[in-house]
């Protein structure tokens, strides 16, 4: 849940990057970390295995600056994508204000995407959150791979985007679509905050 400090006029929101293993969640955060100036980001914390697979989460706090007179900060988390780590995945979702679902565009990964999306729904429900109401955007990553290996954004929308939420094509390794995705989820989260707290 967003934290709003009216005394110091600060807003802090939690955004979770979710998706199947190796879909590019950590890569999104690495790209953001590399592009944002030192003064506007904290340390990137990665709890990973020895082979650099996410074990618990990656965490990156970023400072968006002043929005409507509030100093606004986002906490970006990733979850471990591997099926084995569902318990920790569920813990990271606690208190999330918004979710970026990072899908793998490879055709052979479609079942993994669907399974992960169902897993997101079930883990949100454990926290009493309905996937149909939480701010959500989809990112179709690895769109730089050869055409014959991947599904088009339209095909992926048909298969995954049951809510008709904003979706973004991406090549997170080189940064394409990373910024647009972050912008998309930021807007949805702050819109919900503005609507939910209006006097």
């Amino acid at each position, binding site marked *: *849940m967003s*934290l*709003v*400090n*009216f*005394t*110091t006029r*600060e*807003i*802090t929101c*939690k955004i979770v990057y979710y998706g199947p293993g190796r879909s590019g969640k950590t890569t999104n955060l690495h790209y953001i970390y590399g*592009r*944002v*100036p030192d003064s*506007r*980001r*904290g*340390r990137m*914390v990665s*709890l990973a295995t020895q082979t650099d697979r996410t074990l*618990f*989460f990656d*965490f990156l*706090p*970023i*400072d*968006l*600056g*002043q*929005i*409507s007179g*509030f100093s*606004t*900060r986002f*906490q970006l*988390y990733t979850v471990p994508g591997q099926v084995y780590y569902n*318990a*920790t995945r569920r*813990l*990271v979702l*606690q*208190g*999330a204000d918004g979710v970026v679902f990072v899908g793998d565009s490879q055709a052979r990964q479609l079942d993994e995407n669907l399974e992960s999306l169902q897993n997101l729904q079930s883990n949100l429900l454990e926290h009493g959150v309905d996937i149909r109401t939480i701010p959500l955007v989809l990112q179709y990553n690895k769109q730089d791979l050869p055409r014959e290996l991947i599904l088009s954004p339209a095909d992926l929308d048909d298969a995954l985007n049951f809510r008709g939420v904003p979706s973004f094509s991406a090549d997170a390794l080189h940064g394409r679509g990373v*910024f647009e995705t*972050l*912008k998309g989820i*930021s*807007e949805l989260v*702050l*819109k919900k*905050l*503005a609507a*939910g*707290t*209006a*006097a």
Partner: protein
Amino acid sequence: MTTRAVEPWIFEPLVKFVKEAGARLVLLMTPAGQVLAQHGFSRALDVMSAAALGAAIMASTDEIARQLRQPPFAGLNHQGERHGIFLAAVPTGRGRLVALVVYDLDASSLGLVQLFFDELAADLQAASPKDSVPKRVLAADFERELSDSLNTLFGR
């Protein structure tokens, strides 16, 4: 050393605890890792990393307790060469909070921290208001400012 609290009712109990327990750093946060008060940190973004890790440890041990079908563990302590950390939950009128306390072994001890932590928990329980009134946060046209901020952030 600075002490900051998002909500004013936390400030006095926290200042008292820091003084009596001889704590070096203290964070009070929601179970999701949102910081409500802190003592001793100098950079807000570093506070967030510590809070994320503290909340994760707490969430993991709560989950282990749940799988063992027992109530959540009372507290956790890790002792290093020079510092110790103590992590525990505090029930308040605003819900359950998590406290992360870092202490120097030459200035304090686990016993001292635990002793005054119980007082902190009681003080917070007594001081916490039960209701909060929602206030308007963002202006209707915040999207333009958000867009400008993100463009600046990404150097666009």
